[in-house]
């Protein structure tokens, strides 16, 4: 066969979202790739400028469909810095719990999609089944399974329902043996190693050159995790290890994500224990009334009032399940943020596609892209 371009996307089972990977192939060999993003661009940054600080949270859930709470967390930290509001300690722990559960949920979703890409059928449903337990937990305290709108500037919307921590411990106890099962299904299979070893190699220097972060960076042996390197929230209070692997290939990324889930379980056990032992307020008292206090609907006049608030900017960067996400919120004193800017890790990870795809086979594209863990929502914003 002569060389030809094929479009893998925007409607293609490999993409797991709405983007297009143009591939130039010769027979089964990939000669060149050209990732095209932007099909899902919704202008979230611009829309944010017309919304109250708390209303932006709604958009954050829509930014990434598997990691909504992590993105809420990202935005909330930046917004609180811009508004100079300090959340109570319990709220911070609740947010950490949200983020870690979200990490498990997101990685389980990744696992399900990834094994589907290499043709494993049953683990796909195992991953989805176990993710459902995490979603059930979310539902029990946020009321939603995907669009949570749980965090607020100055705290979180509501405290946990009674009995939640026991339920959470039960889920964690269920999950830990499942991770072993996943490993048996994948790492125990020779075909898995045949398909994934030495595939999609992206060395540490290439990762840094392209701004690739998250599990992809750690799979190249770089021990960088913002929860450790630049602790935000109260991550310095909890004890955990950074998951690192050598190899920089698809298998290494698998190992890193699996280990991250185990570490998340470790963090969650500590956080849940803390939450049990320390009841308290979940909302800061200094939140201005027009921002919306917990449990009390905001009066109409609150929104209309042109309240002057000290100006400021806030920057945050968190270790989102896909990588390092960053947010920049400019507060010019109005009710709305003047400018909001997000940095999506997936955008950088995808943009480096040429580096880790060229030279492999067409059949290698799904496992490699699967190991990148694409979430187009947050990539295009």
């Amino acid at each position, binding site marked *: 066969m002569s060389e030809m371009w094929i479009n893998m996307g925007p409607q293609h*089972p*490999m993409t797991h979202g709405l983007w297009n990977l143009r591939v130039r192939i010769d027979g*089964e060999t990939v000669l060149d790739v050209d990732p095209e993003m932007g099909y899902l661009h919704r202008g979230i940054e611009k829309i944010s400028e017309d919304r109250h600080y708390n209303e932006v949270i709604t958009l954050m859930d829509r930014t990434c469909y598997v990691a909504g709470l992590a993105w809420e967390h990202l935005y909330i930290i930046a917004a609180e810095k811009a508004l100079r509001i300090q959340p109570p300690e319990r709220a911070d722990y609740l947010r950490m719990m949200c983020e870690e559960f979200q990490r498990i949920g997101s990685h389980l979703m990744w696992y399900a999609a990834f094994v589907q890409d290499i043709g*494993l059928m049953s683990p796909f449903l195992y991953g989805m089944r176990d993710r459902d337990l995490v979603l059930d937990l979310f539902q029990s305290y946020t009321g939603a399974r995907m669009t949570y709108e749980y965090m607020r500037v100055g705290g979180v919307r509501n405290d946990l329902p009674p009995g939640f921590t026991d339920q959470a411990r039960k889920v964690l106890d269920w999950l830990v043996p499942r991770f072993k099962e996943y490993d048996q*299904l994948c790492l125990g299979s020779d075909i898995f190693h045949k*398909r994934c070893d030495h595939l999609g190699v992206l060395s540490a220097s290439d990762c840094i050159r392209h701004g690739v972060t998250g599990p992809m960076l750690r799979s190249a042996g770089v021990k960088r995790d913002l929860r450790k390197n630049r602790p935000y929230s109260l991550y310095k209070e909890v004890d955990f290890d950074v998951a690192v692997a050598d190899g920089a290939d698809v298998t290494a990324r698998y190992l890193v994500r699996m280990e991250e889930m185990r570490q998340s379980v470790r963090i969650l056990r500590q956080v849940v224990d803390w939450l049990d032992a320390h009841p308290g307020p979940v909302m800061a008292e200094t939140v201005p009334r027009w921002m919306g206090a917990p449990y009390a609907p905001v009066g109409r006049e609150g929104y209309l009032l042109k309240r002057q608030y000290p100006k400021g900017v806030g920057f945050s960067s968190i270790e989102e399940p896909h990588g390092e996400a960053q947010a920049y919120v400019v507060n010019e004193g109005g009710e709305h943020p003047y400018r909001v800017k997000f940095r999506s890790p997936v955008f950088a990870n995808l943009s480096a596609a040429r580096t880790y795809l060229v030279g492999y*086979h067409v059949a290698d594209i799904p496992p490699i892209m699967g190991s990148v863990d694409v979430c187009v929502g947050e990539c295009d914003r």
Partner: protein
Amino acid sequence: MSNVTLYSVSYLLSDTVLRAIGSVLPRPLSAWITNADLITGIAVLVFGALLLAASMLNTIVLIWWERKLLGRFMDRRGAMHVGYAGLLQNFADGFKLFRKTTVQPRDADSLGFYTGPTAYMVTSMILFGILPISSGWNSGVLPLSLLLALAVFSFAPLFIFVSAWSSNNKYSLMGGMRSAAQMIAYEVPLLLAVVAVVIVAGSFDLTTIVYEQQNYWFWGPLVVALVVFFAGMLAEMERIPFDLPEAEAELVEGWNTEYGGMLFAFFMLADYLRALVGSILVVLLFLGGWTLPTWVPAALTSFPLAGIVWFMVKTYIVFGVFVWIRASLPRVRTDQLLRVGWNRMIPLSLLSVFLAALLVTVKCLPVFGCVPSLGV
């Protein structure tokens, strides 16, 4: 009841129906319609219709069986709502596909686009006229029935490639290429594994091969051949881990990407027909066909149509193993598949031929007993 054969059943049906019609008709017409030649002719048609109905019904039940098994492997229940335990789900699906419009891509080649799936299904169905299901339940004594079955079985890559090429889609073309490469690569070890069986049984006739297994089923002494045959069948059926021609993740749906509605149903049906044939061949060649070992109590083998029942049980268990493999293994890559095919499977199949020759020379095995046809 033990001497009921497929032909006697169809003759009985034809005879009864035609005589019933003849009894109400006026004399000259009645004499013509109850003519022995006509009854025999209609009996042949009934014979074909019975085979067709049985193969279709079995295929549909096979799909149900796969869905239920796969569901259980995946910690869910599979089809549940249409009919008892979802038994009628496939009829509903088939009816839905039947009603759908067939969309032909603008630049597709009509001739290939339509004849490809049709020929694929027809050749798959011809196989059922060749395979014996039980003693007497076949379409007559064909001395080379195994050879004929494998020859018809290997038509498939041609029709797949024709339909893929005429779809005018890059994914289809790649899927078609892969399919052709894969099927041709696995045809060779498959045939060599069959040669091992033929050497031991001393016949190309499937019925004879089954009766040669009265002392021991061939899977024991010919276990290498069984492994090769099983893997080769897996590749011929294009099931996971060898389903790369329709590798969903990269090729959308492979060679049948552009097919929808009834043409897609043709492909789907033919795939399962071939899966059924594959399982049947494993049972016939290695698992003693419709016979049971002699130590089994006679009550289990003497009830009416016992042969067919045991044959179906074995076939569905073998297919269950295929489903099990599908539920637990990832997909391999084309180059890996071809490398395994040419570098591992062919030497293995040659080894199995050698072992079979050795077995025939030795004539008797300590555990398994003797080869009956060699007169020891």
